[in-house]
């Protein structure tokens, strides 16, 4: 009778079972609800009608359970890859596997709102199996980011990589390919700065690894040692099209640790991570300030003095390491090693700074020590457009919808547009949240920027190709081009519109189907 008999896993998505699973034009729950409504209109009791809905839902659940069991049985026989525990009962693996026999095409009604993404054949494979997946993605509009959008486009995927991109007339889909359909196809979204995988959904000490407060400068903290590849929020952001996240230690300490770049697929850190060490994350301004008496840094001046001292130590460390006499080389110091990589320009220093003077300080420090700087958040960067442009430093702009308080009180929805139109390389981010919502979704942040001065293409670039460039991963990600990773996001309409849905993603050629979200 009660919905709380749902399993914990299912309960996260109240419409988990029936919405996407049917070939009919109306998802099953909606049909059930409609019928229930009709019955109510016909004078039948509300409870009875609701009961019917529940019974139907229960039936669907039972069937789903049976299907899962079938798949499990088959998987144990080695015939079908196991089901990724994604967004509900989203997919029904083709028991024969995607490469056996011709792929059934969707019936026309299935291609309405819910059915755009080909459900019937959307086999879900674990990463290890995806190498064999041959998939074709068809979009009424395909935004490749490598040129103008393609109408009636096709992206062909072989062995996890993009094998062909073009119009339906140009690209023939081999008969044995799994076919996915969507109104709009984009590259898999890249969140240029997040803390998902570190700051978990529960927000209790058990799942919060984004900040270590024991010392203000700890560049030796490696992100791979704390990344939870099975964190629920990774699955959540993937549900909106995010396939790659730059994530790790959060703003909040002078040097809070390293960051990494991971795909939102892969159930272990090794499978998910593509760049184990991406940046060293630093913070300037009130967020890094210690309010307790006797603790440093207590002021902005002290922050910069401490950073300078540490970089000078790292310079010395590097110099002494060059000593031809091994005995005279310094003992290994992982902290200075990490900062040494910054000095050698092997790793960028990503500095979170919001107020104008803090942004200016970051530029000054980068000039002084000649490291690669990425400005992060940069709320008041619109006041320093000339200076930032002259420095050549890219900016990962704060989440457009982040809260306008404290050092972010003067934030503008138009900052991304102002910087972009001045020629400064920018990306957008979901940022770090310490409360509700526990993570933002970078798609939504770009949407607000698109509503506030960025063109559609510019806004999409902030979460695809431009983000990839700033992160140095554009050789394999960020656009739909032959040879790049087969990471795609599928939508039933303009991805930025509030009422559109993400239908699923492809990551490394692996299909993640889901109820429209």
């Amino acid at each position: 009778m009660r919905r709380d008999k749902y399993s914990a896993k299912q309960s996260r998505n109240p419409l988990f079972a029936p919405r996407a699973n049917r070939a009919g034009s109306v998802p099953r729950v909606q049909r059930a609800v409609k019928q229930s409504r009709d019955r109510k209109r016909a004078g039948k009791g509300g409870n009875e009608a609701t009961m019917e809905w529940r019974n139907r839902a229960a039936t669907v659940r039972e069937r789903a359970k049976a299907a899962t069991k079938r798949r499990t049985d088959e998987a144990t026989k080695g015939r079908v890859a196991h089901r990724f525990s994604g967004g509900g009962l989203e997919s029904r693996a083709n028991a024969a596997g995607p490469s056996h026999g011709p792929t059934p095409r969707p019936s026309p009604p299935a291609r309405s709102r819910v059915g755009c993404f080909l459900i019937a054949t959307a086999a879900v494979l674990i990463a290890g199996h995806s190498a064999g997946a041959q998939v074709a993605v068809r979009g009424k509009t395909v935004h490749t980011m490598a040129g103008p959008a393609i109408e009636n486009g096709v992206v062909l995927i072989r062995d996890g990589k993009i094998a062909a991109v073009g119009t339906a007339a140009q690209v023939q889909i081999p008969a044995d390919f799994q076919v996915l359909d969507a109104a709009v196809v984009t590259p898999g979204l890249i969140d240029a700065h997040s803390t998902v995988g570190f700051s978990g959904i529960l927000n209790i000490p058990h799942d919060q690894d984004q900040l270590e407060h024991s010392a203000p400068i700890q560049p030796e903290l490696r992100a791979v040692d704390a990344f939870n590849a099975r964190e629920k929020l990774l699955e959540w952001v993937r549900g909106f099209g995010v396939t790659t996240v730059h994530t790790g230690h959060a703003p909040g300490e002078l040097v809070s640790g390293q960051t990494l770049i991971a795909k939102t697929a892969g159930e272990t850190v090794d499978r998910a991570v593509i760049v184990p060490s991406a940046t060293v994350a630093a913070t300037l301004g009130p967020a890094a300030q210690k309010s307790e008496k006797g603790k440093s840094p207590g002021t902005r001046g002290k922050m910069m003095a401490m950073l300078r001292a540490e970089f000078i130590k790292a310079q010395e460390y590097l110099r002494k390491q060059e000593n031809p006499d091994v005995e005279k080389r310094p003992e290994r110091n992982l902290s200075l090693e990490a900062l040494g990589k910054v000095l050698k320009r092997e790793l960028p220093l990503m500095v979170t700074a919001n107020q104008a003077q803090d942004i200016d300080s970051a530029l000054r420090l980068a000039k002084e020590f000649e490291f690669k700087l990425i400005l992060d958040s940069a709320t008041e960067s619109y006041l320093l457009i000339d200076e930032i442009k002259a420095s050549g430093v890219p900016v990962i702009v704060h989440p457009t919808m982040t809260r306008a308080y404290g050092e972010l009180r003067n934030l503008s929805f138009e900052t991304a547009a102002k910087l972009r139109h001045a020629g400064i390389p920018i990306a957008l981010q979901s940022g770090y949240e310490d409360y509700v919502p526990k993570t933002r979704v970078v798609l939504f942040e770009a949407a607000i920027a698109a509503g506030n001065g960025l063109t559609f293409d510019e806004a999409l670039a902030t979460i695809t190709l431009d983000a990839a460039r700033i992160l140095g991963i554009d050789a394999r990600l960020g656009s739909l081009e032959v040879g790049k990773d087969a990471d795609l996001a599928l939508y039933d309409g303009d991805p930025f519109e509030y009422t559109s849905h993400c239908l699923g993603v492809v990551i490394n050629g692996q299909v993640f189907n889901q109820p429209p979200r």
Partner: protein
Amino acid sequence: MIIAPPRLKPAGHTATLLLCLAGAAAPAPQAAVAQQTPLAIVGARIVPIRGVELERGTLIVAGGKIVTVGAADAVTVPPDAQRVDAAGKVIMPGLICTHNHVGGIGGADSTAPLQPDVRIYDSLNVLDAGYRRVVAGGLTTVNIMPGSGHLLSGQTVYLKMRKGNTIEDRFIRDREGRVMGGIKMANGTNSIREAPFPGTRAKSAALVRERYIKALEYRDKTARAAGDPEKMPPRDIGLEAMVQALAGTRIVHHHTHRHDDILTVLRLAKEFNFRVVLHHVSEGWKVADEIARAGVPCSVILVDSPGGKLEARDMAFENAGILEKAGVKVAFHTDDWITDSRLFFRMAALGVRGGMSREGALKALTVHGAEMLDLGDRIGTLEPGKDADFIVLSGDPLSVYSKVLETWVEGEKVFDRDDPEDHLHAVGGFGAGNEQVPYFCCFDEASKQ
């Protein structure tokens, strides 16, 4: 305050606008504005919320009230009216936020879990920049609430976003002239803390029960005294507010997330027969039918991800739609600063994304909120006789690309996107955050939502 000319281009003769001369500070502003020139806005798509949408409509307002709403070709504009052309734009009622914390709220303090004597309006700064964002988002009425770190954190206040320098300028008064507001209550983890606060959910309910019983006794004793001062109980302004809740003249606005906490609220409301609106209701989708059966309305919040607190782990975009389908009256709220008042439309649109009807989502921003504040007869729809609270949009209300161009309260324009200062608050920028205090000045983090 700025008295700007109307942004919409006059299409006919230009009469001098006296809209801003309305006596907004008067307790009964509707009487004071009666002399103003009628304003006729012609050609916009009108979404009246109640009644059919008009592709090309005319809205006529005068004296702070709506006079006429109709198809442009069916309505005669009076000759003395200021006529403005709004073709291509969308007009709908001003938005109503049933749960908002703008203005530097400071409600109950850390000394007790129930403090019904505390009135939130004693703490508000009407000049707070947050209120500029409120009107930039198209909100014309807000329920300003104390935080949720208490079982009962004080009396809320319903504000009309009139221009003004004092909180009194924004009060809404009932027929008896009483300042309208509700009572803020909470259960679940926010109000569980060290003594004298409860340590468990059952203790939370026990403390609430005990206080309502006191209120019942206070009410009965007062009634028995029949005006005899010798027999009257010592005056207790906290219990007075709770007696109003028991009498149904003050609505209880109840923060609650988990499905069992929701049911506890329903149980207590039934036991003491107070009128209640459930707020947040993150797990409402699990007990939608129980809520529907109780006939209790829900003011829902949707945020960008579940989690952040254990109770919000099962928050879902589908919540509003499931409640709607179960027959529950649903409104949305910003909970500003949890979500920004400028993005209120977005929440309704996310509700639609999660399965809610478009019609229901628009009601959830307007008339349903009005009804949850006992203001359904005055605001929330564009109907003759109601307050002239409306907004002008550049496009469809549920599109990310649409902008609030103007916000009008009782026939006075309180936000104009073309005004540079208003624009600063609408999009942000240097100086936008100067006049504001953090909204949660309360005694700890747990009272955030």
